[in-house]
């Protein structure tokens, strides 16, 4: 049976080697590296014969290194000097700090990373599932159209992604190209998650309007400007996932759309002026009211199938 060293065993090995290095730092660099190289080989050689962590296989690093140094003809570890010059003291302090980072902090982080790997596997799966819905979040169309607007289906897809991610994490692929693919998937998952968080923070995706959803459409308010005014209004047909309205939300855009919808100029103007005079959350609610009015009229008067983009073509009345 061929044994290969897994990620967990590699971490144990790195940890053990770093602890060995503490007992070699008085030796010249070449000798130190040569001994570390040998210790690495020894552990790997013994690991092919026996199971266990390096500490179990060859004992604690201090004893092992001390014996290895003695039998291989190197001087024993230097005793600490009681009196030190100032420059030596600074050098030692810097060296100790470096050593603590290399031998304690770094292994600690490596162990922490190893312990958190299952959480990362789950997060990676969810992140990757977001990819399938990313188009929907950004412009109303999911990469898998049926997912758009269907929470149950998205949860099912997310579940599959999490399952796959955990399985890949538990049994890492051995082929280099597959490992590369797993790394790429991780990067895509992180990118999708960051994009999603960014969208939510910007207010680009404010959620579905219940009343619109019940009437066959869903409304996504556009990205908000610094005055919490939507810069864009989008309407999605829930049943097909199609983007049926995608328009600018500036004052003039709104006036044009209200006129197209047959509202009298004065009504539209009064409505907009009342919103313009509002601040903060009140203003946001005002704009939502404008948006609601537009979408209500839009849904009442238009056939989804005949209208694709109110911002580019005038609807038939």
């Amino acid at each position, binding site marked *: 049976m061929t044994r290969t060293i897994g990620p967990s065993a590699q971490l144990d090995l790195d940890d053990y080697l770093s602890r060995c290095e503490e007992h070699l730092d008085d030796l010249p660099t070449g000798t130190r590296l040569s001994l570390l190289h040998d210790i690495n080989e020894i552990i790997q050689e013994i690991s*092919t014969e026996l199971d266990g962590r390096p500490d179990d296989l060859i004992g604690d690093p201090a004893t*092992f290194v001390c014996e*290895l140094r003695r039998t291989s003809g190197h001087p024993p570890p230097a005793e600490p000097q009681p009196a030190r010059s100032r420059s030596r003291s600074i050098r030692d302090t810097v060296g100790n700090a470096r050593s603590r980072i290399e031998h304690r902090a770094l292994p600690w982080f490596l162990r922490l990373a190893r312990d958190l790997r299952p959480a990362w596997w789950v997060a990676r799966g969810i992140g990757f599932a977001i990819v399938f819905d990313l188009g929907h979040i950004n412009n109303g169309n999911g990469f898998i159209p049926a997912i758009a607007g269907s929470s149950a289906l998205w949860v099912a897809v997310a579940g599959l992604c999490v399952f796959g991610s955990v399985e890949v994490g538990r049994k890492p692929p051995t082929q280099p190209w597959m490992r590369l693919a797993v790394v790429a998937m991780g990067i895509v998952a992180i990118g999708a998650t960051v994009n999603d968080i960014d969208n939510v923070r910007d207010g680009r995706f404010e959620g579905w309007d219940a009343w619109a959803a019940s009437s066959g459409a869903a409304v996504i308010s556009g990205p908000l400007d610094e005055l919490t005014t939507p810069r864009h209004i989008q309407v999605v047909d829930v049943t097909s996932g199609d983007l049926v309205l995608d328009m600018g939300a500036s004052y003039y855009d709104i006036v044009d759309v209200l006129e197209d919808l047959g509202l009298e100029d004065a009504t539209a103007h009064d409505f907009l002026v009342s919103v313009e005079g509002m601040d903060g959350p009140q203003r946001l609610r005002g704009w939502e009211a404008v948006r609601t009015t537009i979408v209500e009229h839009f849904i009442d008067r238009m056939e989804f199938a005949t209208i694709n983009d109110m911002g580019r073509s005038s609807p038939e009345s």
Partner: protein
Amino acid sequence: MDTTQLLKGVLELAVLAILDERDSYGYAIVVALREAGHETVGEASVYGTLRRLAADGAVSTYQVQSAHGPNRKYHTLTEDGIERLRAGTKTWTSFSQTMSYLLREDTP
């Protein structure tokens, strides 16, 4: 008497003797020593001895592909190693004869 201390003095000779029989790798030498009765011999002692013998030119190494994992580093005696084994054997034989003689004389 603690045989561990005794073995320290002759470990190099024991390793050379094992390699004289056949080329071997570090862990196999550890196992051979333990099977021969030196159960307490440590891996560090054997690997350290091999490292010193290699540095002295008494053994050379070569890699052998292993079906069980990474390549194994096999050790083989050089001419210097064979000579060192011969000299060590002579010294040990003389030493052990002397000790045997002394112990026979002194033991009641």
